Structures are given as C-alpha cells and as structure tokens.
C-alpha cells in the first residue's frame, strides 16, 4: 500500500523519468499495462464516494473512533446487522444467537470466515474482542458493568454470562461493535490498542485497504469474502475510493464532472440542481429527498432560569417554526421532527394517544399565551418577557461558525423566539468552543443532533435523560435535566427485550415524560445526505419499489445498518 509520503520522491523521480520519456516518445507510457498495475483504477470498476471522512485516513483501529471510511463495514464487521425497516437484528458474522437463559446469551459464528491474512475467525476472536472492553479506556468498557464473563464453547460458539440482562444495550453491542482478530491485536500493547493506527488492518469484510493519501482512501475487493458463499452476496465495485470531505463547492463540481458517484454530505440546493442534472438522484424524488438520519434538537441548559421550567420550554417549542427552517434553510431537503423526537424508523413505537394529548405544533399566539399562563410577562415593556422574579434575561443560541445550514437555522429559531417575546440572539462561535460549552454546560441554548438512527429508541432516551449529570457531559443529556423517574425507565428499558409487552409501556411513558418536561426541543430530522450520480453506477437505493431500500450511505455507522447491501445491489451503467 502506497502512502503520500512517497509522492515527494516520486514527483522528483517522475520529473526525471518524464523528461526522459519526453525526449524518447511524446505519446507517453500510458498504454503501458503496468501503469494500471501501478494503480490506475478502471472507472467502470470503481466507486467514488465522499462525505463520510472529515480527516485524512490515518486510523485503521476499530477500537477507538474517528477511523477511515468503511473500516467498520467494508473491513471489520459486527456479529449482527440491524435492519431498520424490520427493526430487527439480522445475523452477519454470527449465524445465529439467542438468550439460552435469563442471564446467558449464546451465539454461533458462520463457518469458514477467513481474515484477510488467511487465518480463520473463531469464537476466540469474539471472546478476545469482548474482553478488550475490560480495558478502561475502551469505549465499550461499560458492558462489563453487567457482563460477567465470556466462554468459548467450541471453535464457532461462544457464551456470554450476564450479571444483569440489558437486552437493548447488549443488542446495541451486537451490531454496533466489530470483531477484531485476536492473533493481530494480542500483539499490541495496551496503548497501541487504544490509540495505535493499526495500519494494514487484517479484516473479515468484503474489502481491504488498497492505498491512501491525505485526501483519499482506496479499498480493493477481497475475493474470499465469506458472505459470497454463505449469503450469495457479491459486492459490485472492485475498487472504492473515498474522498475526504472538501467544500460543498468542490464536491458539487466533482459530482457534476462525474468524478464522484455518491456524496454523503449536505449539498445546498441539490434539489434545484437535479432539475438540470437528470443524472443525479436522491432517495426520494421530492421533499424531503433524504432519509432521516438523526434529530436536530434545541438544547436548553436547564440549570438556569427560566430554562429550568418545563412550561417555559414547552412554550418555546410551540413558538419555533420547524417549517420555516425546512423550507428556507434546507429548501425542503429535511423533514419536520415529530414532537416526540423519535425518528420515523421508530414510528411503530409512537403512542398516538400520548402524542395527541401532549403533542404540539407551531402557533406563536398560543406560545405567547402559554408564557403568560406560566407567569412570564413583559412588564418593563422592552418587548421581551422577564423571568418569574421580574428580571429580564437574554439568551444566546450558539452554533459553530461556518456550519452554514445551522447558522441559518439558528437565525430562524432566534427570530421565532423573539417574536413571542423570548429574548434570544444567535451567536456563531468556534466549533471547538461549542464542543467545550456543550461538554462543560457553559451555555444557554445550543443545537445538537447526536440522537440518530439505531436499533432501539432506548438510545434516544438515554441521550435525553442519562443520569447522573457530571462535570462534563460527553455524549448525552446536554440539557442537564435531572428526572430520576425518566432515568429509571430508561434503565428498565435497557433491560427489556423488544418483544416484551413492557417494552411499549415504558416507551409510552417516556414519550409522555419527554413531551411534558421537554428536556430538549426536537426541530427537524437531519437527512442521510445522499446525492448519487447514475453516470457510472445505477440502481441506487430509493423509494422506488424496484430498487434496494438500504441506506445509500457510507457513514461508518450506516454499514452495520444495511448500507453494505447498497454495494451488492449496484449495477454498472450501460
């Protein structure tokens, strides 16, 4: 695998070579077959993607995050995939798996799965992977709070003993975490395991790394992928070149030049562009064009007045017009969020009764009324209400400077709130500053969309209600809303199987709580940004019945939710 560093040498080398050739023959050596061997990807066998990677490839280590595109999915694989349409886990590396007792889960690997270095994948690898979690800094360390032990039954079978059967959390592990080869990782020191780059990854998936550079990574197809035999699946592209994100401008240029087949980044105005560019497609032909990926929410800091008052937060919710944002900012490329904040994937769990009782919709006048009822009035006549003690307040809504769509969205939100007398102004600060604010709680209002598609609404409610509230909140409950009741339910939910009747009861209860207490205000669903070009590859996933319905997406968390099927379904264009 070549690496950009060589380029220095090569450029020099080439310059010489070039001049040499220049004298001899001007036609150049491009007919020379070995150039192709040198890695000139044939266009019709290569899939060019962009939108997933935000930094240069440099991390092939599946243990920590921030890895190269496709590492978890094309390279490493999970035991199960999650099927968002049926909302069930489907066997992947695992042939089958089930709870053999209240606190025992047993699963069997498929036979004949080979790592890219030829080794067999065995239950030992699974055991090893799980036990890596015993290292404190491994992200899934927390499973060992309720996992007791892992045993290898035979070459392909492993058994996990639990101290507490956290079904949802365990399911999450089953499809969200990939299995790593013991014979490779056991060679690594703890530090290498945590932050090593793991170059030349030894993988089980359909592709291995071909080469990479600062602005791209190229995957090449493996011919001995287990799924071909077991599931009769064949990934179509021989090469996948994923280009590190650049500006919208550049991405659009590449799309229009046909240099990129699939862009999974937000491209403004793509709707308008597609009119002139029939070759471009999105999942839906009309609004919202994109499948929903996560819920963008307004996060109030509930530790300060009057944001600590649910009534006030509900009034805010009613005052904000998601439609305005959907149309003006996104040109209809996203959809308004359901008041519960639950993604469409989870529609089946939405309790209409609760929704109709506690739901709401954009209605400024009503919002004003709600404020008044809750005792927020404008007595000093500055056009803005004061808090209950009659003190005026002014809130900043912070979004990262440069996130153009969010900047515009926050403008719209702030002006909506001002219209009903809540003094909010948008302020664009550095992305890092926003991160710090969100983590440390040193903010008043921010936007956040970290509750995304998953196997279970449990992740959503964990995101909303997680307790305790710590010094720094890294990935959940940024509102710092302390609702013991809700957190109890979330924990119970974690330990409840989806087919258990109790499951829906808890969810209804949580929906009611989230609507009453409004720890965060759902506004719109961010899309699975996906603009595909039919110029080289066709049969992209879409709403049409004759096309696959997998996520047309290369984001790392999407492969395990079926995006891998996109690759097996692609057809070369005539």
């Amino acid at each position, binding site marked *: 695998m070549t690496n950009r560093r060589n380029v220095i040498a090569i450029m020099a080398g080439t310059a010489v070579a070039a001049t040499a050739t220049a004298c001899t023959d001007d036609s150049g050596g*491009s007919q020379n077959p070995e150039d192709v061997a*040198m890695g000139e990807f044939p266009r019709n066998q290569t899939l060019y993607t962009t939108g997933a990677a935000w930094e240069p490839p440099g991390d092939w280590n599946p243990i920590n*995050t921030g890895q190269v595109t496709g590492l978890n999915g094309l390279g490493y694989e999970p035991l199960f995939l999650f099927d968002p349409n049926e909302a069930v886990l489907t066997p992947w590396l695992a042939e089958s798996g089930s709870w053999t007792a209240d606190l025992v889960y047993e699963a069997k690997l498929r036979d004949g799965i080979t790592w890219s270095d030829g080794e067999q994948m065995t239950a030992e690898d699974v055991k090893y992977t799980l036990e890596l979690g015993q290292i404190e800094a491994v*992200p899934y360390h927390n499973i060992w709070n309720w996992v007791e032990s892992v045993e290898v039954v035979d070459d392909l079978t492993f058994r996990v003993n639990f101290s507490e059967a956290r079904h949802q959390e365990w399911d999450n592990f089953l499809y969200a975490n990939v299995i790593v080869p013991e014979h490779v990782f056991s060679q690594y020191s703890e530090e290498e395991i945590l932050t090593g780059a793991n170059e030349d990854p030894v993988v089980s998936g359909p592709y291995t790394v071909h080469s990479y550079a600062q602005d791209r990574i190229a995957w090449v197809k493996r011919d001995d992928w287990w799924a071909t035999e077991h599931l009769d699946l064949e990934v179509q592209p021989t090469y996948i070149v994923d280009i590190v994100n650049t500006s919208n401008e550049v991405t659009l240029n590449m799309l229009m030049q046909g240099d990129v087949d699939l862009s999974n980044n937000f491209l403004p105005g793509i709707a308008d562009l597609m009119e002139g560019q029939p070759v471009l497609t999105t999942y839906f032909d009309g609004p919202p064009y994109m499948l929903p990926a996560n819920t963008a929410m307004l996060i109030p800091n509930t530790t300060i007045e009057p944001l600590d008052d649910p009534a006030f937060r509900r009034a805010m919710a009613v005052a904000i017009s998601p439609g305005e944002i959907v149309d003006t900012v996104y040109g209809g490329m996203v959809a308004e969020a359901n008041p519960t904040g639950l993604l469409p994937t989870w529609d089946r769990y939405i309790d209409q009764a609760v929704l109709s009782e506690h739901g709401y919709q954009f209605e400024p006048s009503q919002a004003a009324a709600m404020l008044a009822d809750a005792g927020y009035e404008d007595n000093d006549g500055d056009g803005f209400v004061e808090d209950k003690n009659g003190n005026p307040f002014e809130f900043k809504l912070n979004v990262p400077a440069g996130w153009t769509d969010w900047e515009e969205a926050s403008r719209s939100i702030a002006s909506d709130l001002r219209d009903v007398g809540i003094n909010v102004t948008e302020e664009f600060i550095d992305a890092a500053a926003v*991160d710090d604010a969100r983590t440390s709680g040193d903010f008043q209002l921010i936007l956040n969309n970290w509750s995304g598609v998953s196997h279970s609404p449990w992740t959503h409610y964990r995101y909303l209600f997680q307790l305790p509230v710590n010094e720094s909140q890294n990935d959940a409950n940024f509102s710092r809303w302390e609702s013991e009741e809700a957190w109890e339910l979330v924990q119970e939910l974690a330990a409840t199987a989806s087919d258990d009747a109790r499951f829906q009861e808890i969810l209804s209860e949580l929906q009611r709580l989230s609507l009453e207490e409004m720890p965060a205000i759902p506004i719109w669903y961010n899309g699975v940004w996906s603009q595909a070009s039919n110029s080289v590859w066709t049969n992209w996933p879409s709403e049409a019945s004759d096309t696959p319905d997998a996520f047309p997406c290369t984001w790392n968390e999407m492969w395990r939710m079926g995006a891998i099927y996109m690759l097996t379904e692609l057809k070369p264009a005539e």
Partner: protein
Amino acid sequence: MGRYFRRKLLIYGVTFFIAVTINFAIPRLMPGDPVARMLTRNSVANPETSEALRSYFQDLFGLDVPLWQQYLNYWSALFRGDMGVSIYAFPSPVADVVLDALPYTLALLLPAILLSWFAGNGLGALAARNKLLDNTVLPVGYLFTAVPYMWLALLLVWAGGVLLGWFPVAGGYSFALTPAPTWTFFVDLVHHWFLPFLSLFVVALGGWAIGMRNLVIYELESDYSNYLQALGAPRRLVRRYAFRNAMLPQISGLALQLGVVLGGALVTEVVFAYPGLGDLMLNAIQSQDFFLLQGILMFIVVGVLIFNFLADVVYVLVDPRTRLGLEGGQS
C-alpha cells in the same frame, strides 16, 4: 560581506525564536480545549472512561506540566523534529502530515512566484519604454493585483473545470491514480497543478510589472542615465543599464513578496482542494487542531526564512554596492 550575513542571520534567528514563541503562546492563550475535543470525538459514554482518556491525552499532548516546562519541552521537541500529534489526522504526527502537504505547496508557490517575477519584470520594463503598453498593460496589471486570489480561482474552476471541463476541479492528482513514477502520473500531476498555479501567477504578475515599470522610469531619470545620454550613448545601452539596476530592488522585493504570494497560495489551495499546506491549514482550523496549525506555521516560517536568505545571497552576488559597501569601501 561577512558582517552583512552575520547581521541577516541574527535577524532570521530572532524571527525564528519569536515565531516559535508566538506559536507556543497563541494556542495556550486561546479558548478551545483540544483534549475535550478528542473526548467528544471519541464520544465516550461513561465518566471514568473519559477521565482515563483525558489524562492519557493530557500527557500525550504534554499539557499536564507547568507552562515554563511546556515551553522548554516545546523547544527540545522542536529540535527533535517532533511537533506533537495531529488531532485532525490523529494519530499521525504533525511533522508527517505537514511533510505530506509541503511538496504540493512548493510546487505551486515556487514556479508561480519565480515565473511571475520574470514575466512581470519583462512586462514592466517594456511598459516603461512604450506609451501604448504603459496605458494598456498596466491598468490590467493593477486589476490583477487587486483581484482577491480566491475569487479569481473560483472563476477559473468554474470556467476551466465545470463549464469547459478542460481541467480537474479538485485534488493534487486524479483520484483514479496512486502515485507512481510514470509519465501518466506526472502528466496528471501537472494537469491538476495548472489552474491553481495560473491563478497565483496572474495575480502576482501585475504587482511585479507595476513595480518594475516605475523603477525603470526612475533609473532612466537618474544622473548616470543623463550622463550616458549626454555622451550620446544609444537608448539601447541606457535602457540596458537602467533595467539592470532596476532589477536589484526587485530581487529583495522577491523575498518580501513571498509572504504575500504564500498567503494567496493558502486560499487558492482551499478553492481547488489542492492538498497543500493551505488546504491543510483550513482543515486544521475547522477541527481546531492547533498542533497541526502550529506545525504548518512553523514550516512556513522556516521556509520563508530560507527563501529570504537565498534572496540575500543572490542580492550580494549581483549588487557590487552591498558587496563592496560592506567590505568598507569608501563613499
């Protein structure tokens, strides 16, 4: 001459020292906690894990010792060529990341600055002797120097890339290629290189032309030119002398301009997603990777210093006045 160089080197030394200090100070005075950032990127669920990670990164980035010690470490690390680990390209070391991007920027910068220098001086000299040129070429020149680099670049991409499809719109070399010492690859490199180069070249050109034009005019009015003409020397000779002498200030100008053109290169690369320092810088900014940002600035400063020094050497070689004057010749 020795004194001259000693002096210059002293200046460069101090510059380097200050640059390094700025480099060290800025990030630590500024908001944005890199460790918090790593954590959020690793989005770790439970507190104890994040604490473990925090302390781990703390000493990885050397933030857990007193400031003065950080400063000393910073220097010693610098001389070991160790500029810390990039957050943006975690876990690659900053030096590697920068070295990867460097050749592209150089390939853009050096030709652009040198060629524009020669072309510009030629043009300026012509304009200085030709009223017609003076009134046509120069106004255009002013416009070019005034165009914001990136704006011109955007227009070029749009025209040459999207509309005409003659040139690629992004990247340092085709995404269908992997670096290899072949004719194909080289041609491809050049193909990707041309537009960014052009936009830099054009903007720089105007400045040189204008400067040269004025200098030549001044020289033509100088005493020695008058004397030559009084003694009936042909215009050719007078102009040759004037041109030669006008070149000298342009040479020192070359060094000073570098900073400016470099700035242009940075933004131009952004427009073309050309994988050089500028593009890298933008990414570093967007991911608040101040180790990388510092590394880049470090390389840039060193580069500029080297270039300046070369310019000094050349200057001494071509201008007897510096040479002799500093050996203590009279007057």
